[in-house]
């Protein structure tokens, strides 16, 4: 059984949002919530500022706080390691949402259940890549079996220094980053959801 993981190489992410739109389309994710977004972080002062692009999604943690927090056992780990929510067992007690340090879980307005990225288990079980990986124009996302030493992800993990989002949470994420500019700690607006407070109103 493979042990799936994802590597995101921030050297080549161009911040285009193809991943998050592909995710919206794959699951018809309702407006207002996201399973995958691209964070933009501005860093530094004029005349030498920069902007970082950081795609974020559920980390499918080895030690998943959401799974531990769910009182109805609606959150399970598939044999390949993907952490999924079984909507039928969810009574929307929101414990998982509170437990997740990444803000990856949202309340689905249609199903009235907790929902999040599934690592596209419906696709990966058929040998396909997740929708976000398929959509990435620069192939900055690598998905595959961490335990297969010949897999691209394992190779790239060996060849690069990698890190994870919020290592201090000790959740053992299985979404890894190549982060040459140390951008991950700069994420200010927490969570996979968009920062709606950034909007300025017209009146």
């Amino acid at each position, binding site marked *: 059984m493979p042990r799936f993981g994802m590597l995101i190489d921030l050297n080549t992410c161009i911040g285009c949002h*193809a991943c998050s739109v592909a995710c919206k389309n794959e699951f018809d994710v309702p407006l207002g919530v996201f399973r995958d977004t691209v964070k933009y972080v501005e860093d530094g002062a004029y005349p030498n500022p*920069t902007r970082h692009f950081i795609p974020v999604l559920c980390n499918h943690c080895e030690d998943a706080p959401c799974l531990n927090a769910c009182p109805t056992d609606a959150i399970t780990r598939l044999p390949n390691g993907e952490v999924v929510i079984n909507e039928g067992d969810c009574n929307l007690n929101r414990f998982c949402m509170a437990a997740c340090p990444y803000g990856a879980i949202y309340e689905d307005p*249609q199903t009235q259940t907790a929902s999040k990225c599934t690592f596209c288990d*419906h696709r990966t079980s058929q040998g396909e890549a997740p929708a976000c990986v398929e959509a990435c124009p620069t192939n900055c996302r690598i998905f595959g079996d961490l335990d297969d030493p010949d897999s691209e992800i394992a190779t790239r993990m060996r060849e690069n220094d990698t890190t994870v989002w919020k290592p201090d949470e000790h959740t053992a994420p299985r979404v890894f980053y190549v982060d040459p500019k140390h951008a991950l700690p700069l994420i200010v607006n927490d969570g996979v959801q968009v920062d709606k407070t950034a909007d300025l109103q017209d009146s």
Partner: protein
Amino acid sequence: MTRDAASPPTANPDPTGGSRDGWRLSRRDLLRLGAMAAVAVGGVGAIEITDRLLDDRTGDSTPEATRIPSMCQMCTTACGIIGHVANGRLLKITGNPKDPNSQGAVCAKGVAGPSVLYDPFRMLYPLKRVGERGSGRWRRITWEEAYDEIATRLREIRDRGKPEEFAFQQGRNRSSDIVSRFLNAYGTPSHFNHRALCSANRRAAIATTIGESDWDLGDFENSRYVLNFGSNWAEAHQGHIPVAIRMMRAREKGARLVTFETRMSNTAALSDEWFCVKPGTDGLIALAMANVICREGLWDRTWLETWSNYPPDKILEHVAQYTPARAEQESGVPATTIERIAREFAAAAPECTTICNRGSQAHRNGYYNDRAITMLNALVGNMGKRGGWCWHPRSSWDKKAIPEPEPVPDKPTARSIIAEAKDWPLANAFAGKMKVAEIIYLWIREGRQKISALMTYNADTAWSWPEAQLVRGVLQDEKLIPFHVCIDVMYSETSHLADIILPWATYLERWDIDARPPQGLVDYVSLRQPVVPPRGESKDIREIFPELARRIGGGMEAYFPWATTEEYLEEYFRPVPGGFARMRADGVWMDPTKKPHYEPHTKPLTAAELDGAAEDAETGIIYKGADSKTGEPVAIGIRIGGVALRGFLTPSRKVEIYSDFVVEKGKAAGREVHPLPVYEPIPSHQREFPDDHLIMTSYKINVHNAHRTMQSKWLQEISHTNPALLNRATADKLGIGDGDWIEVTSFRPLDPAVPMGDGSELGTLRTRVRLTEGVHPLVIAIAHNAGRSVGGAYATNGKDDAAIPGYGEAADPDLDRLWWRGAISVPQNDILPIYPDPVAGGQAYHDTVVRIRKVG
């Protein structure tokens, strides 16, 4: 504003139509129903779930989605796509790996295609206005009624012998064959485009220099150093994804990316180094680099002596005035930086290239800026070389190998003063005519050309043109525009001012033969084909134009002998091995025998080519035959070092650092055009700016393109607002804080070479401020992909949710979740002056002087 039905629809709409193909029958519902089962069986593809549920309903046993190759048209890049379709519904879009340009990659806009196709506010039925023009009162009509009225109006104009009074205004047109066929068959030269709002200055600069092409295609993938002046290839370049994927591959191989830009675009942020410049000084920086390269002997002197029409020492003499110190003073970039970058660029030669675009060319001095940037490549001898600054003679497919099916109508003999735009010497000087888009509606208002009928096609001029309020005034005036037909996918500011609206099929529902400048330097040809049938009663111009031609008659119909578009394309693609069937299966074809277009100028002329040729002893230029129209001898090459070579396709057969051609064109237009790349300071910027005076620039965000991307709820959800970007230090001086309201008042340039260039106040907008470190202190930057007032709730941030006759209520559960309702979104174009570069006519988007004032 209301768009109420004045009378019931004349045709009976399919009572289930709205819900059958709208969002109501949602994959979300299907997925939700299938989700538990999916988990229970350990994961089943979403597509299969959908299919199985549909199968239960329809009895259809097709288990797999059909994959239909086609081409994107969310922007102008036209990447190869695959539509995944099941039971007549488009499930998703992925890239077509067979496309040599995009190589299977798409961006967010491309992926968002289904949200445009199934936009609940899309126009699906022909409409005729029943109130005053612009009142928003419409009656649904049949296609028969629409055809009849349009053909009657157009026939009358043509029969009067005034075909030029029928004007056709296109926006982005990827159906150029059928558009030209229709207009030429009709006989109108009043074919207005938008190139001057896009790329005219840069095209003119490149065409002046190398002749063969007006579009550079840096060989980025093999380059070690890419010097970028104001191109935002990571978000909006005409070669967006094809360029971006090659840049990132170059980066993985260690290439260095350096950007000069007034604002921290995503491209600037992705570059190894970004230098913030004062608007309009890119050319001066390039000239200062030329100064360093020449002065320090970093040039490829041998190449220059061979291929430049102006000797190296003369170039050195010319650029001596452009010192790095002077460039620092004007641009703000330190002289030491300019020197360092110049040296690094030259050291990487020939595996180095420039790239430039709107940041350098969309200026009052844009032509000269890009002349200077282009020259840098000649200096280091990278032109046409692997990893260097390259180009391709074809901006689309090989039209000699795959010609238009006969009979092809001749070009019109009637004249259009507006299309000719003779005040701008280089606007129409080259093969690819550019015209001067920003003056069209001004000149109509001034009565310079009479218009009896206007057809707008995929062009929201009333929103997207400079001085859009002037355009709206003209479109509103029935004396100036007695009849206006709008063809578009969505209701827009422009269709709001039409007499008849024809609902256009989206790019996912129609046919095209198409291709783009090949970033891989080998031309190809592609097919755009319907991945689903057109929704409602929407139609493409490939169906509309032949029908109108038949009804107008008078010989026009003879150019449309094909019964269907498929029949026409069957004939068009006959030269492709495997023909139309192969194109339908693969979506693209590239001749495998063709090699990348490296150094075409060094190709020796063959004995057959030289047979009967004559040589000019002084210049070495080789001539053969005479031009059929002018009788002038035709140059075919040049003798270099005793060998007859093809050379560059310029008058001198060399790279024209010095161009007599443009000087002559200038004289004919009564304008002085400098033969060399020069720095021409922007007249209205040559003064001390008080603290509250700034230069307003515009930009485009990666998820948006033209008006129609704002139809997409998914793209709008990511970007739907355009506050004014202001440097923190500038704001501090003015006592402006983040989120504060400001009033931005724009001025026309005080510049006699610009129409209405009297320095007067033009207009005011009110917006709010976003403070950033990523913009020049003298700049206020506002994204122009915002500020729609009509076009549905998603496009307008909830302002316009009026139902259009024939639609029924917009059906999409997401409408209740439109969370960005009321977010600020202002139309910048209303206060952007008509401001053409006096040489080539390209619009100066980044030179407007404004005054800002804190309000509220």
